[in-house]
Each structure stands twice: as structure tokens, then as C-alpha cells.
């Protein structure tokens, strides 16, 4: 039997101890003291952008819960007068599994964790929009070049890249969800198209109930968006130069960046069938730059006209109602050979007599 070292149980003991104490507030961890200087933009002039921490964005990160001192443990009460540079924890100190997965991927040697994730703003996958993810990728990967390289094999590459975060195909999550967000027309911006995700401030300007932007769609406040609420919103939203935009998001985030063989096959996504397209979410921007996800009534993605008018995945989001209408039209055409043909056969003698 494998021997368990006492030191290997230390993280578990520490975690249990933290749980026993209860949730750690920012004030208790001493974050406020740090933020009194680092949340002030004047610090950028003194030491560069890296020193600035957006307090609203930081407050919702898991890192704020463990406190500034956990990663910057060399900082003493004499900081910054002591002139010592503060220490920085390495990401792998806590995220060693992700680090190993990432290091083994084709992206491992190309960028560090910090190139994509700002530890003071980092959010879980469900709080990030597909456009935000692609904006990170676009820091190194030129959008035009990406479209061009995908265009060699992928029909309508520009459309795919608009509707998919890169990680949907280039990491190994096996399940996906359709997440919709509200986009607003931005005049004068052509790099990512004319529509961009609406910010919390832009939506708050429409005076939603209790200042809660989700109430712009979820009118009854039951935290579930019904098809009727979706239709009503779509009807109103056109006049306000906004639209609902759907993206196919991975259900879990992995860091195994790779070129997956099965993604060359269009049927990986397009032949999943309408049953796989029942569930969808609406992501509302919050004032920390992240998103809060709300469930949408089952089947909204398949609604023909007003459910998600600008989201359609060939083969997968087809409407059953429309299929029935189409089948009736074809059946009408078949009535001629079947009905007329039968009568023709039965009355063949009449024509011979003439």
C-alpha cells in the first residue's frame, strides 16, 4: 500500500480550516488595504499598467477570495516604502493539473498563462462571452489571417468564426451549449463586424426593473426566459439597433489546445440533430465585465421566427413544424401521380374507345 506522507495532506487540512472559518471577505484578507492604492488609476503613471487592479472585476474573481497576500506573500506592512519588489506566485502552484495539460498542448510553448488570463480579472467559463474569448485569441492571431486559413477547407469560415469561440473546436470539450447574448450596433467599427456585445451600461440605459438588465428579457423575473419573453424582446429590439447573437460554447474549459481530427468533419456539429439543440442560455453582462447566465425555455433555438432569428445551424436547428409543412407540400405534388394516375388506370378503356 502506498504510504501517505503527512505533508501531502497539508492542502486538505488548510482547505478544511478555511471552510471552518467560513467565506473570506475581501476586507478580512486585507485586500482593501492593497486596493486603496492599486485600484487608483494614478498608480499606472507611477509603475505601469500591471500595477492597476480594477476593483469591480477583481471582486468577483476567485483570487480575491483567497486574498492579495496569498500570491504576493512577500509584501510587508512597509510596502511600498521598503523598495522591495513584491513576489508573485506561479499559476502552477495552485493550478498544476491545468499547467501540465496546457504545457503538453501545441499552445504550451507559445504563450504563458498571463498572456490570456489576467489573474485580477479572471472568470469562470460561464461568465465569459465567446466574443471575449476570441478577442483574447485575436491578440496574437490576426482575424483576417485566421479566416483566410480556415477558408481553405471550411465553408463560410467568416460565419463560423463569428459564431464560435476558437476553444470550441481547439480544445477537447465534448459537449456544447448555445449561449445567446445581446449585441448592439457599433458605428464605425468594422474589425469584428458592426455588432458588438452590449455592455452592462448600455443595457442599464434602458431602465430595466430594479436596474437588473436580465429583466429586459425576463419580464416576470422568474429567472427563466420563456419563448414568449424571447419573442417579445426580439420584436422590440430591432428598433433599438440590437440583436440576439448565439454562440456555440464548450460546456467545460480545457487547456488541451490542439487540432482535433473530428472537427474536420462538419457532421460533428451539424449532424447532432434537433434533440441536442433543446437547451440554451442567455448571457447578461454584469458591471464587472463578466456575464450571468440564465436558462432559456427548452426548444427556443428551434423556434422558426422569433426565438433566435439570427442563430441557425444547418442540419441541427431545423424546425419540425416547418418539416411537416414541407412534407405536406411534397405530398400535394405526389397526389397528381398517385390520384390522377389511379383514375387514369381505372378509366383507360374510355380513351381506347375514343
Amino acid at each position, binding site marked *: 500500500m502506498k504510504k501517505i506522507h503527512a505533508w501531502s495532506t497539508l492542502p486538505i487540512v488548510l482547505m478544511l480550516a478555511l471552510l471552518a472559518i467560513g467565506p473570506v471577505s475581501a476586507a478580512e484578507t486585507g485586500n482593501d488595504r492593497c486596493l486603496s492604492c492599486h485600484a487608483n488609476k494614478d498608480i499606472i503613471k507611477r509603475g505601469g499598467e500591471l500595477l492597476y487592479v480594477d476593483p469591480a472585476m477583481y471582486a468577483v474573481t476567485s483570487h480575491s477570495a483567497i486574498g492579495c497576500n496569498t500570491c504576493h506573500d512577500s509584501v510587508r506592512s512597509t510596502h511600498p516604502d521598503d523598495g522591495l519588489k513584491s513576489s508573485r506566485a506561479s499559476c502552477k502552484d495552485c493550478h498544476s493539473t491545468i499547467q501540465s495539460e496546457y504545457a503538453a498542448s501545441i499552445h504550451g510553448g507559445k504563450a504563458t498563462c498571463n498572456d490570456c488570463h489576467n489573474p485580477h480579472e479572471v472568470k469562470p467559463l460561464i461568465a465569459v462571452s465567446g466574443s471575449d474569448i476570441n478577442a483574447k485569441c485575436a491578440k496574437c492571431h490576426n482575424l483576417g489571417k485566421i479566416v483566410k486559413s480556415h477558408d481553405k477547407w471550411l*465553408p*463560410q469560415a*467568416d*460565419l463560423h468564426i*463569428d459564431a464560435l469561440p476558437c476553444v470550441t473546436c481547439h480544445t477537447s470539450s465534448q459537449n456544447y451549449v448555445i449561449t445567446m447574448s445581446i449585441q448592439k450596433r457599433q458605428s464605425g467599427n468594422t474589425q469584428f*463586424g*458592426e455588432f458588438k456585445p452590449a455592455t452592462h451600461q448600455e443595457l442599464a440605459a434602458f431602465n430595466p426593473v430594479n436596474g437588473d438588465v436580465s429583466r429586459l428579457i425576463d419580464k416576470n423575473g422568474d429567472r427563466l426566459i420563456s419563448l414568449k419573453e424571447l419573442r417579445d424582446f426580439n420584436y422590440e429590439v*430591432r428598433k433599438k439597433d440590437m*440583436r440576439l447573437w448565439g454562440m456555440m460554447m464548450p460546456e467545460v474549459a480545457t487547456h488541451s489546445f490542439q487540432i482535433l481530427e473530428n472537427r474536420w*468533419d*462538419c*457532421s460533428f456539429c*451539424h*449532424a*447532432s*440533430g434537433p434533440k441536442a439543440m433543446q437547451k440554451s442560455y442567455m448571457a447578461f453582462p454584469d458591471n464587472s465585465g463578466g456575464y450571468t447566465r440564465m436558462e432559456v425555455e427548452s426548444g427556443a433555438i428551434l*423556434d*422558426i*421566427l422569433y*426565438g*433566435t*432569428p*439570427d*442563430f*441557425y445551424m*444547418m*442540419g441541427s436547428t*431545423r*424546425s419540425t413544424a*416547418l*418539416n411537416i*409543412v*414541407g*412534407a405536406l*407540400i*411534397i*405530398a*400535394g*405534388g*405526389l397526389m*397528381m*401521380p398517385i390520384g*390522377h*394516375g389511379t*383514375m*387514369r388506370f*381505372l*378509366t383507360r378503356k*374510355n*380513351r*381506347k*374507345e*375514343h
Partner: protein
Amino acid sequence: MKHTEYVYLTPMPVRIWHWLNAFGIVTLTITGINIRFPDVLNIFGTYKSAIVLHNTAGIVVSISYTLWLLYYMFVAGTLAKLYIPTMNDIKTGIIRQAFFYFFQYFKGGPNPHHGTPDNKFNPMQKAAYLVIMLVLLPLVIISGIILMYVAPLREIIMVIGGIKTLVSIHFLIACCFTAFLFVHIYLATLGHTPLAYFKPMWDGWEKVEHAHGDPHGDAHGSSHDKAPDNDHAVKSAASIGAA
């Protein structure tokens, strides 16, 4: 006594146009079914092959349609005359023709329409081809082209009411074409023999039987003995190619 004559009824360009269209539309229908129901049907190996083939056939049919339209509008100048029903057609012609197809034909009665080169379609054909050639085909072509370039044409799609509206229009018109295909092929079997109308559309030559001593009379008079709508049928064969 009868003698048989062959008439060069369908010129080669018309036949090429017809079969190119026929092949294109059948390809579009089959690939279209594959594209809409990939989880149920996979005929072309990969989904992408079905899409590429669908797009290619769509472009071929679009070019072919444009040439047809330009020819009838500006070269022949007979588009309005051939395809727009007259007041008489609307008031009585369509009803009379429908009465023939669904009643008189079974009793062995004669076809009320006798085609001439200037009026080769019967009133029902005129109405059907007007809708098919000048409404449905342009709509399915335009919606198809927009669907091939969704990202660049997003603004147009938003004006239409969203990509789902566009896809629905494209799909329902495609169903109308599939329905028409069955009707079209069936009606083409109404000649004096079931394949009588297919042959001239393939090799151009129509077999015409004359009563002895009446080579210039009713060209299909003798055939009327067997098929009373034969005169209409010969003209219809020409019209099938022309439409």
C-alpha cells in the same frame, strides 16, 4: 392507313438547357435533403461534400436561369406572351383546362387547348410556369445565394427578418419544386405512350403518325384515336423543354 413521320421538335440548346436544369434540380433536391437531415441521411460521404455539391448545382442552375431569362426577355421577346395568362385564360381557360385534366380526360374527351408556337402553353401551364419561373425560381436562387454568403450579407438577412426566415423561405420553395417535379414527370407521361414526351426531349425528334393522304392536316389526328390530348401533348413536350 397510317404513315409515320419524325418532326425535329426540340432544338439542341433547349434540350441541353432542360437536362442541365433537370440534373441541377434533382442534385439540389437530394443534396438539400442530406443537408437538412444529416443525422438521418448521409449519401455523399461527408457533410461538406453535400454542401459543395449543393452550392455548385445552385450556381449552375442560377446561371442557366439567367441565360434563359435574358434570352426570353431580350432575344426572343416572348416572355410576356408565353408566360402571362390572358384575361380569358384567367376567367375561363384555367377552369376549362382543369376540368379537362380532372374530368374530361378520364372520359376520353378532347383537350381544349391546341398549342401553337406563339401560344404553346395551356392556361394551367401558363399559370404554373409563371409562378415557377418568375416567382419561385428567382426567390429560391436569391435566398440560396444569400445563404452562401451569410456573414458578408448579414445586413440584408436582418432586413428579411433573420437567417431563420431566409432558411424557411428557401426550404419551403425547395419543397414546392420537389412537388412540382412529381407533377411535371407525371404529366410528361400523358402522351400517346408513356415515354412519347420524354423521347423528343432527349433526341429532339417527335414521332408523328399521319392518316394516309393527310400529311398536312391535323398532324396528330391519328394519334387522337388513341390519345385525344395528343395535339396538346406534342405542344406540351415543346413547352416542357422551353420552360
